Each structure stands twice: as C-alpha cells, then as structure tokens.
C-alpha cells in the first residue's frame, strides 16, 4: 500500500508520544494544573459576579434594578420598615445590569458562587440574606 511506504516510520505518532511523555515527566514547564476543588479554591477576581449583596443603608428601594433586570429576577419586598430587593437566584443571569443601573451604588455582587440548593424556594434570596451594613460616610 502506498500509505505504508510513505508513513512506515510513523514519525508523527512518535513525535506525539514524545510530547505526551514530556507531560508525564513534567519536562519543560508542563506542570499539573488541577485545582482540587473542595479542598483548594482558586482566587476570584474582585469583579467576580456571584451572589448579590445589598447595602442596607444605601438602598432606597427605588426598584430600578427590578425594572432593568432582563429576566425579572428581582422583586422589591418589604423588610422591617424599608423596601429592599429580593433576588431569585434560580432565574438570575448574573449579568450585572442591576449593579450597573443602581443609582445609589447599593447593589453589588459578591464572590459567592456555591449557590446550589435543594429546593426552589431556598433559591429565592430575600433581603434578610442579601443585606449587609456599610458605614455611612459623612
């Protein structure tokens, strides 16, 4: 067969074997890169868009985030005496539009990405789980 007369050295396969062996023996900056997830974690960037957090003092409950949310994830609910957003994480796109549009810069997104849960109800994050206190500057 013409094929074997041209390829009898199998040089391509041997080249491939060499490069894979280099990986096995870690020759030349080919380290193991696995991050053993539950035991080690990668460092998140400060801009990471995870679970929302709402500044308790800054939020005025205006509902602009509610209106601008592409997926109708946010609803404004009453918490204690004031109105705050409530986020249904199950529907959230994590697009960050709510953060962009907030006129008071009260909304931000945290690095919490482990949001899996057992029931749909527990995916709805009410103000009790979203609010954080930031000292009022002035």
């Amino acid at each position, binding site marked *: 067969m013409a*094929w074997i007369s041209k*390829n009898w050295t*199998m*040089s*391509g*396969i041997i*080249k*491939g074997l*060499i*490069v*894979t062996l280099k990986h096995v023996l870690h020759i030349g*900056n*080919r380290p193991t*890169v696995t991050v053993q997830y539950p035991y080690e974690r*990668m460092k*998140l*960037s*400060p*801009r*990471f*868009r995870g679970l929302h957090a709402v500044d308790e003092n*800054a939020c005025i409950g205006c509902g*602009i985030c509610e209106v*601008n*949310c*592409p997926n109708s994830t946010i609803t404004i609910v009453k918490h204690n005496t004031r109105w705050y957003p409530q986020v249904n994480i199950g529907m959230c*796109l*994590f*697009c*960050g*539009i709510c*953060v*962009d*549009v907030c*006129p*008071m*810069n*009260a909304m*931000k*997104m945290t690095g919490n990405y482990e949001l899996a849960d057992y029931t749909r109800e527990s995916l709805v994050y009410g103000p009790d789980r979203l609010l954080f206190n930031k000292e009022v*500057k002035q």
Partner: protein
Amino acid sequence: METDELIINMGPVHPSTHGVLRFKLRMDGEIIKECTPVLGYLHRGTEKLGEMKTYLQFIPYTDRLDYMSAFPNNYAYVKAVEELAGIEVPLRAEYIRVITMELNRIVNHLVSIGSLLLDLGASTMIMWGFRERENALQLFEKLCGARMTFNYIKPGGVREDIPEGFIPQLNEFLKDMEKRIEDYEQLINSNEIFLMRMKNIGVISAEDAINYGMTGPTLRGSGVDYDLRKYEPYSIYPDLDFKACVRDECDSYARYIVRIEEMKESLHILRQVVDTIPEAKIVSNPKYGVAPMTGTPSAVSTYFPRIFTPPTGEVYSRIEAPKGELGFYIASDGTTKPYRVKIRSPSFCNLTAIPKMVQGLKIPDLIAAFGTIDVVLGDVDR
C-alpha cells in the same frame, strides 16, 4: 441476498453531537446514504426575546447564543445597535473589545480542536485545550467578573476599564500559548492516524461552500479568502497586521489547520493590540450615559443609559465570529425595544452543509467532519 436499509437516529443524546442535535441517518451497512440533521432541541426563542427586552437587557442573552465565544456575540449585537443609533466609541474601548474577541477566538478554537480530537478518540487534546482555556477564562474573569457569559461590551464602549495586572497576565498568556500551540502541533499535525482520518474526508468544494452559506474557518478551509475582518473591516482591524488563513484542500484537515493558524494569527493580533493600546482611560461614550448620581462611583462605570432609544430604522451588521459570519438584523421602531431581531448565526449555516459533506462516507467520517464544522447548538437553535 436481500438487504435492508438501516435507519439510525444519532442523537439528540449522543456523545459526539456536541449538544442536542439529532442526525437521521439512512445507512447501507456502515455507509451513509442520507443524513438529515434535525434541529430545534435547544430552541429558546432568543429572537423573540430580543423583541421583548430593551436594547441593554438583550445583551446578556447574546452571551448564550454561542456560549463558547460570547464576546463576539456581544460585540456583534452592540455593533448593530451602535450603527443603528450612530454611537461613537472611544478608541481604547475598541482596543479592549478586540482583545476580548481575539482571546475568545483562541478559546473557541481550543475547544473546537479539543472536541474534534475527542470525537476521534484522542482524549488528551481537549484536556490540554481546557488547561489553556482556563488561563484565558481567568483573564476574562479578571476583566468582567464572569467566565463564560460576560455581558461586557455595551453600546458606546465597554462595561469597565481593564483592571490592574491584566496586561502583564495577558502577556504571560501569550508567551505561554505560543509554546502550547507548538505542543498541539507536535501532538496532532503529523499524526498518521489523524491524517488518515481527516485527509479527503468531508470534502466540500469552494462553490458548494459558498452556496450553502458557509463562513468562517469552514469556508476558508475550502480555499475561499473571505474574512470579514479583511473584507469588511470593522473596529480597529484595518490598523492591524494580520492575514486571513486559507487552505485549499477543502477537507476536514484543511479546516483543522485553518483553526490552528487562526490561533497563531490571533496571538499576533493580540501582541500588536497590547503594544499599541491607548493610554487614555476612557472606555465608554459619555454622551450616551447617565453620570453616577450619589455615593462613591465604584469601579463599575455607570455611563450606560438605562433607557436607550435609537431612532427608527433598520440595520444589518455582521462580524467575523470565531465560527463564521455572525450577523444581527435589528429593526427599530423608535421605542425602547427593537421591533425585530434576526440573528444570522454561523453554526446554523455551516451545519446545513453536513448532508452534502458526508454523503457516501461512514459514521466515523460523519463524526470527524461534524467536529471540524464546529457548531455550538445554542448558536444553531437560538
């Protein structure tokens, strides 16, 4: 002896259909007599959603079309909107957009080549591809806070300026990537078994490719020098030095080589962009935004309009996405929401050529040819 045709339904759940695509195969033994792709298993009505959402709200949905390369999707839509409303974009924003898009092209091709090799039975390449992809994704995360669905490019600019430490990390990635591509080439390019599987398989002539509306690496693998970055330049591509990668073998191998070459070209482009990126820190057009009202303006620029109303009109704007020509047609009736959004997605048009390609070949060839087409089902079904 009486023989009968065998009808095989490959998919919608099958390891190598890259998602939920179904092939209806009429087989004569192992030979494919007719192949019919059956689409629609991932249809989400994105075009209709485009009519229901405001211009800004729709951008996150474009991320989910071709989720392997979301930046070009973002950009294609935003470019259409910008053309519709005549928005100027600061130069630095354009540079950042090109960085993201070219990085995304590399990421896309890594996954594409990896899954092609996985379909052929070599599991190593996809892991190596994902290793480098991870580095790129960390860059994306650093830049916009998300790893796959970015919502970063906005009308009039980009969401945020590049953070500190981004450019050095990018340079490191570029340096790293060069060596990695050498590794890939050593592993795959001259592998006799790979050549045996790819050469003269899934051949589609230049004429057929054009007639089927194929674009991107699949078209350039058929010897047609058609790259929208060259042919219809947009953004800062006219100022950059790069070449469209063309091979004229028309077979699966050519399409694979085009992807490898394109990764190298993207690295080349990225190096130029990194060297010449403007220093001025303006990344969005202030005319189209609202200034931050109170509080300390965070790193997040709030320059984007919440309500954005382009004039009445219609526009079709297209870019060279990693998979081919990605076009957005937007008709505006002067309200806050588009009257009609039509997406011309590259995967869909490229996929239509599969029946022609695999006529008379075997199932393993269908897998190989399909792998080189590089479709993402989110892009096919929309």
